[in-house]
């Protein structure tokens, strides 16, 4: 690729430096967290390269709060939401993309309301609803407001719309029912979208805080984010070494998953054709 570049080599160097500085800046908090977590608390503010390395912070953090249980809660929660959303959003998106029915467009506009008005904004009302259902402090309660996602429906509808009708026709000719067509034609072709969306979803719900905070009360339902917040708000003052260790523990899985899947992640985004 040859391009007339008025800036020349100097410009490229400047750009490289700028990009790298930004990158370093962006990584600073994580690097600090790692530094602080592996050194004793005396070295929180002293960046002495010869400081002793210890795993004690992780041990203390792990024992100080039931993180194992929090992990379990978060994994169950995220998995549940992932599965439910895939099913519900796929069905709805299929209907919006491929069916003609009265009120379809109005209904779709109504669905899109949730794009702007996240369940978090309606904290109080949703809390009252959950309380009336008798579900306060349960894992399903955390998930319920998010099970149907306007974003998911929107994305999948777009994907399905882009799939040529010939594929569907072919499947129908072979005697596929509506759901069969969905399952055999549309879903497989939408794989990259599912992957990209799934990753975004997992990340979002793993890190979600406010709604789980108000809807959970006990160790058996509390996800990692709320557990971490409670854990960190100690009367005795902040112990950064332990908090950083806990932070790394709670965001570790997600970080590692991203490290492993980042190629696929970016690729799938590129294939989604979000324009």
């Amino acid at each position, binding site marked *: 690729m040859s391009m007339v570049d008025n800036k020349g080599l100097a410009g490229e160097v400047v750009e490289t430096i700028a990009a790298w500085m930004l990158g370093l800046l962006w990584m600073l908090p994580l690097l600090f967290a790692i530094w602080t977590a592996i050194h004793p608390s005396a070295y929180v503010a002293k960046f002495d390269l010869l400081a002793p390395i210890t795993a004690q912070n992780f041990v203390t953090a792990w024992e100080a709060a039931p993180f194992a249980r929090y992990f379990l809660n978060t994994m169950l929660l995220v998995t549940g939401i992932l599965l439910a959303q895939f099913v519900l959003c796929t069905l709805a998106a299929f209907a919006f993309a491929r069916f003609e029915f009265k009120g379809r467009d109005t209904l779709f506009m109504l669905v899109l309301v949730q794009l702007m008005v996240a369940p978090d904004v309606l904290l109080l009302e949703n809390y009252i609803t959950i309380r009336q259902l008798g579900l306060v402090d349960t894992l399903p309660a955390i998930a319920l407001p998010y099970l149907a996602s306007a974003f998911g429906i929107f994305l999948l509808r777009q994907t399905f719309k882009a799939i040529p009708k010939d594929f569907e026709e072919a499947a129908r000719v072979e005697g596929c029912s509506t759901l069969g067509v969905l399952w055999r034609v549309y879903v497989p072709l939408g794989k990259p979208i599912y992957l990209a969306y799934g990753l975004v979803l997992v990340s979002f719900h793993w890190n979600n805080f406010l709604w789980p905070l108000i809807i959970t*009360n006990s160790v058996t339902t509390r996800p990692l984010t709320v557990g971490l917040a409670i854990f960190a708000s*100690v009367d*005795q003052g*902040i112990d950064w070494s332990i908090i950083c260790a806990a932070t790394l523990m709670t965001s570790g899985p997600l970080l590692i998953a991203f490290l492993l899947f980042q190629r696929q992640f970016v690729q799938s985004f590129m294939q989604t054709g979000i324009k």
Partner: protein
Amino acid sequence: MYFPVAVGGPVTKIIDDYAAGFEKENPGIKIKPIYAGDYQQTVAKVLTAIKGGDIPETAILLAADLFLLTDEDAVVPMDDFVKTADDTAWMNTFYPAFMENAKLKGKTYAIPFQRSTPVLYWNKDAFKAAGLNPEKGPATWAEMRDMAKKLTKKDASGATTQWGVQIPSDGNTAWLFTGITTGAGARLTNADGNKVAFDDPKVIESVQSWYNLSKVDGVQPSGLISWGATPRDFLEGKAAMIWHTTGNLTNIKTNAKFGFGVSYLPGIRQNGAPTGGGNFYIFKGVPKVKQEAAFKFIKWMTTPARAAEWSVKTGYVATSAAAYDTPEMKAYTASFPQAIVARDQLKFAVSELTTHENQRVSKVFNDALQAIMTGSRPAEAALKDAQREGERILKDFK
């Protein structure tokens, strides 16, 4: 019975052990502690549970939530369960300072369990370096200010490397501030919790003196001082004296690389300190037999021996004089005399700000204090506005 407790971390194990111990001695009663988070979340959980019909038998909630709970008609007085002379004696063993915001209209609604009070910590090495006697902390506010002047050190570029004193002002500013106002001889509220005196001249004087520590005397950082970061600031040697909860004693003892002293909060005119922390409550709407079981549990949890053990393990102040007379406590305080300071300070302690609509009233007060401490509003005007707002919130409770 299930019982929500506002504690977290390793302390939960101690509570679990207590629950198990009680169950062993009292077969037939099951105790299930629930850790809902901090005081805020715990009381929210309790109120939600009550509204949903799932009422706990007992809970450890903020002493300052007294009016919240009685206004919601959620709790029953302990007096209903006092039957024997022993019971009466037991109810009277607790320090009066802790009982102040446990009583309403002659009835006792709460029993102290995990109570705290703030103290002044000082860095003995820093004192020595500044030419001060390392074994004596400041006895009065003026002395603290003067000592702080000697303790504040700057480096070549003019940056302060060590501040003389740090009194945290973020979050629940009113708590430590009550230490200053009580030391000035002011009372912020009344026993019935329906009056406030935010614009009392002594209160204005208190906040002005506090603000002056930064603005005029230059011995305290300006702006809001972080409660959470202050212990670390002390350990790093960035602050030579700090005000903080006695609950920090163990943390500082473990991590300080220097000798440190603990003293009463130095007052403008007299000694004074707020109390803080949580009490046991018994809830309404639960069968009488369960309430009796809860009462039994509360008595069991607050025996002098247990109160002593709890205090040693957690750093909270033991709730009765009898607790300090136990052999365990005597041994502990002999080896660690700093632990006695908080107890001795109790004779000057008053309850923290406890009123109807406590959260709202506290917020109004805290906002005003924070505005003053960040220099964005003058003391008198801000406190007068806070007083007016406080009166407006409380007018329905006269």
